[in-house]
């Protein structure tokens, strides 16, 4: 209950932040304007509209997640409101989990809003509901779940600026999972070892990029539902690892 109360308070606080609302409004406007770009590419207008829509949701979701994740704990410390919270019968792990869930709810509200607008635009433009695109929005959300956990972990010991660059950098490296995966077959053993370390230790954000399948229906995946389930499980398990690490680090931190 304590955790949920902190999460609710965090969500309310985040939704009051103008920067996040501006990001949401800009993203929704860009999605709504998507059809005006799509017609420029003959015969591929649908693919352009879909890819741009998913890209906008990903980009906005990324900024919202990072801005939320890097600030929720340091802001409490900076404003010294954390003393008030922790002086109550609140465990530190409850505080960390509450902050994470609050941030996650914020991201969910934002991504879901953009997703609904996106599906509406597609319905208007293509004349049919495209439920498969909801899969793309859902995968973006679980990608952001993992990213949020990463940001929360670093926020337990790093300043927001440092955290911003580390999280953003790891997101980029994690997006190159197809590159690190191909390096696993490299003849050079040292390259293989480094690639293995990077590939399995750093969260693979590239796993969640299923735009190829969603934009080009001819791409055949043996079992799409299984693939999505594997990714969701991966996101939840990796997030759990990061949150446990965050709890352990934050528990020892002097505040």
């Amino acid at each position, binding site marked *: 209950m304590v955790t949920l109360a902190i999460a609710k308070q965090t969500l309310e606080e985040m939704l009051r932040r103008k920067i996040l609302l501006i990001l949401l409004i800009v993203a929704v406007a860009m999605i709504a304007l998507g059809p005006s770009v799509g017609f420029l590419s003959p015969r591929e207008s649908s693919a352009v509209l879909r890819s*741009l829509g*998913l890209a906008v949701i*990903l980009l906005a979701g990324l900024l919202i997640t990072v801005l939320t994740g890097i600030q929720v704990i340091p802001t409490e410390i900076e404003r010294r409101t954390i003393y008030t919270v922790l002086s109550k019968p609140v465990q530190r792990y409850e505080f960390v989990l509450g902050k994470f869930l609050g941030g996650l709810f914020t991201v969910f509200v934002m991504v879901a809003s953009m997703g609904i607008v996106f599906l509406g635009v597609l319905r208007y433009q293509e004349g049919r509901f495209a439920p498969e695109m909801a899969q793309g929005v859902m995968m973006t959300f679980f990608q952001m779940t993992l990213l949020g956990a990463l940001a929360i972990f670093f926020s337990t010991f790093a300043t927001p600026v440092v955290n911003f660059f580390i999280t953003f950098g790891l997101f*980029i490296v994690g997006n190159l999972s197809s590159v690190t995966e191909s390096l696993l077959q490299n003849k050079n053993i040292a390259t293989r070892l480094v690639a293995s370390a990077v590939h399995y230790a750093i969260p693979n954000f590239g*796993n969640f990029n299923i*735009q190829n399948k969603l934009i*080009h*229906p001819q791409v055949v995946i043996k079992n799409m539902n299984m693939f999505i389930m*594997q990714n969701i499980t991966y996101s939840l398990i990796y997030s759990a*690892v990061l949150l446990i690490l965050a709890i352990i680090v934050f528990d020892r931190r002097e505040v």
Partner: protein
Amino acid sequence: MHPATRRNLILALVPLAIVAVFLQTRIDPTVADLNRGSRTPFAGLSTEFILGPLLGMQQAVAGLLWVRADEFFHEGDYDAILPMVRMVTWLDPHNLDVYITGAWHLAYNFTDASERSDRRYIPAAQKLLEEGDANNSGVYDIAFELGWQNTDKIKDYARAHHWYRLCAYERKGADAGGELTQPVPMFVWHQLAHSLARLGRIDECIEVWRKALAMSNELVRKDPKDYSRRNVRDSERHNLELTLKRKFSRYAHEIDWTLDSKRTRSTDPVTGSPTPMDACLFLSSQEIQRKAEQFRAVSAPAPAMSVGSPRPPAVVPQWETAFDVRPTFSADKVLDLKGQFNVGDGARVTIRLHDEKWRPPQLQAFTFNIDQDVTLMQDQHSVRQGTWGRKIDMSKDPKMYSFKSERYFLVFEFDPRGTSPFVQDRFGWSGEGMTDRKYLHVETDKNPPNRILRKVYRITRAQVLRREPITEADVFPSSEYVALQWGGPSRPDER
């Protein structure tokens, strides 16, 4: 936190990490499938486009690049399009239109001052399509384009047939939801039938038309109000009947097509024989006299012919084409051709000039880089009233026609398989009805054998630069030329 709780949490990390690694090993193969054909996401991109792929937005960047490439196309800046095509296919290897449009640019849009294509790019165009097809092997689109390019641009009907057949029998179309459950469109079957006709395999061609007609009949039965399907069905019926009739006329009894349209009421669905037979009968003694003269001209024995008796097949007797050409260079690199060809108006002679050592390249992988030192020119010209002639100026395009080689082959060719149906009505699908005293080359290893007319000159750079004249002493044996080019007695049917 209690030390025991901390220890338990740390211990819990181990199985969670193991599960995460295990999941990653299960996810990797599918991710590899999704990214099949794509390259390092930032390869070759300018800085403003790098961030997108790094953040996992390859498709969006590919879409924007494609929009930009479209702008270049409308500005006529074809050179700028190709690198973008390459980048888009790397970023988004499932964008079919990019492969198809890129290959079209390569094969068709690089031209000399007289709008002749730079055919050195054709192998690259084919390779780009093959790469696209390998990355999208479930759908028919790119394989169909390979078939079409081989039909329309390269005139390699055997390869065209290979791709059309693959499309028709092994590929699928997407339904409204994007699932690959639909049969390929009927035009794929139509092109398959046309490619078989171009290969002279008429019985197989007729079978494909019958199959297509049966499929269309079924579709019309399911939705009788679909006028588009009914139109397709009617076209198939017409093409089937016409092919049967043409086979009958060319190889059984020649049909007078003007009379056929007026008097024939029905066509036998198996033999193509018209009912009544009026259109294939000698109706006057003048017609018999004209036919008898044709037999005399080639010293062939004439069958018994009387008014009311059926005409012999259109390809009998064989027609002496008297194919010949006199090439000269009227100025440096300006080829002046004057030819004769005893054939109906509209037949087209192919003219090809290339380095002596040039061979059709077999690319292992796609590349834009072509050998700029190679000279390769190909053109076609129509015959009018038994003669043809043309001036081909290669002096204005030194990048396309560098003439760096010492020796060249200058080839003049007529392939009955690629000619118009009304010319084939006299010569047959594989040239059965034509002969030539000097330049007939029979491709006996093909089934059915194909009878090609080909005159080959082996000339030197000095002749191209008008320092020496081209004479009949420069004529090179056609069979040796074919052996040099394709390493066998004829162009291979399937490569």
